């Protein structure tokens, strides 16, 4: 059995903008253990979402390799689940059709599709809304739908890109709580990108702090908080303040640091 679910190996990524070569990611090496919950935090534009795209096989590095389940990622990775910031539900499909979609492309018979989708829909309390189109659902309901559309095909690795970013504070906590319960039941490997340090510490086993462009790993911190955790009372939980402070100290120096000028080099014509 492979030790790591995801491994980034010496990832460098550059892109061209207006005749300049801009480094987006520099020398990233990171290992994500199986069945762990890992968060990546960093200032906006640091390339943390790009790391998820590399793992999903939607983008590829300029040099270095990404491994998922021991396999180098060289094409779209359909073994993982990817929950994005926008819920990305298909607007022309009902809730049920959306949740059944990944099962349909996997060729499951209609009856199995229906049953598996229904049990997910019931689990997150969306029963009664099966025949609603996405625009008829609230933001929180769309987010739940988007998450169960991923859970329904039972990927072992789930990538989440600021999934709760656009929600109000209460809905966000409720969904964080639901996510933790769900995860403790199935123990998928979750790689979770956020800019919210409290969220990162509250949910994760491990928090990765990235620096601004070019994105580099600044620190990796273990969060030794007892589980199950109560996200509604997380500030009161023993050890939270210490873990938060560790991550914040690392993160803060990044916010105050001047922009690194060495990241941009002119391409000679």
């Amino acid at each position, binding site marked *: 059995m492979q030790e790591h679910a995801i491994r980034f190996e010496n990832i460098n990524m550059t892109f061209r903008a207006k005749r300049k070569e801009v480094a987006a990611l520099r020398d990233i090496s990171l290992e994500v253990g199986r069945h762990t919950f890992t968060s990546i935090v960093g200032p906006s534009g640091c390339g943390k979402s790009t790391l998820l795209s590399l793992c*999903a*096989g*939607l983008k590829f590095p300029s040099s270095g390799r990404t491994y998922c389940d021991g396999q180098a990622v060289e094409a*779209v*990775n*359909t073994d*993982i*689940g*990817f929950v*994005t910031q*926008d819920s*990305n539900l*298909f*607007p*022309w*499909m*009902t809730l049920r059709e959306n949740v059944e*979609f*990944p099962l349909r*492309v*996997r060729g499951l018979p209609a009856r199995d599709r229906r049953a598996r989708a229904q049990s997910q829909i019931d*689990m*997150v*309390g*969306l*029963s*009664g*809304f099966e*025949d*609603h*189109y996405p*625009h*008829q659902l*609230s933001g*929180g*309901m769309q987010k739940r739908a988007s998450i169960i*559309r*991923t859970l329904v*095909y039972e990927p072992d690795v789930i990538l989440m890109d600021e999934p709760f970013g656009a929600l109000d504070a209460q*809905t966000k906590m*409720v969904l964080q*709580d*639901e996510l933790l*319960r*769900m995860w403790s*039941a199935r123990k998928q490997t979750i790689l979770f990108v956020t800019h919210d340090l409290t969220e990162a510490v509250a949910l994760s086993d491990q928090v990765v702090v990235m620096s601004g462009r070019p994105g580099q790993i600044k620190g990796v911190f273990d969060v030794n908080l007892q589980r199950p955790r109560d996200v509604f009372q997380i500030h009161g939980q023993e050890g939270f303040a210490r873990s938060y402070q560790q991550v914040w100290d690392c993160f803060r120096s990044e916010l105050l640091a001047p922009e690194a000028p060495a990241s941009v080099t002119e391409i000679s014509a």
Partner: protein
Amino acid sequence: MTSVSVSAPRSGRRRGDRRTGAETLSVILERGVPPLVTAVVLIGAWQLCVATGLLGASVVSEPSQIAVLLWHTLQGQQLFGASIWTDLGVTIRAIIYGYLIGTAFGIVLGYLLARVDFVAQVFQPYVEAIAALPKIALVPLFVFIFGIGITAEMVNAALMVFIIVLFSTFSGVASAPEQLVAAARVMGAGRWTVTSRVVLPAALPSVLVGMRAGVSFAFVGAITSEFIAATSGLGWMMQQATAAYDTEALFTGLIYLVVLVWLLAQVIGLLQAWLLRWQRG
């Protein structure tokens, strides 16, 4: 996992709701009365102008006379040696076949232009040239190739529909959200599924705008073709009426034309509403 704070289904009209008979009647009255009043006033004024000699009956005819002729043609009276039903049959066939052919080709090529680089490189300049060309200039060519008759009309109608549907499909497909395509691919969808279940539905609103505009383009194509070279059809009949200074027949033809184009636009409108039932509002 527990279910938390799920709001009840929102109020408002949903699928399955039905209007009551009284509601339907009031809607019809609300929407139907103002245009009807306008029609009565305008036609009344027209009739009055002719009756008082303000307008010459030989130029604009007389609403009452047009109504009489319309009634007679419905009962089979011939105009210029042909029953109106024959002419209508020719024109309707040319329009419907032309519309269907033009739409089919427009959707397929519009999709390929947007998604397949090779197709775009090969066809783009020609498509732009044909789009810019006034299609009426091609009618003589089609008559040479297909002879005088329904085929030339149909091809002309198809070409006009083709261009508008092609452009609307192209823009719809080109602007299909990349993140939805990416989401589908990560969930395991292959090329065919991405096309049929993501790209085409995303392009559908735009395609239907083109198809709706295409209805009047099909009429323009068929009728202009009949004006120029034909031996039957509604456009041919109106051309004969013009040559014979028969304004009553001309207006009768126009009325049939208006009714026809309205009917077809309604059909496409219903199709649009059904296909886009997932859209807001």
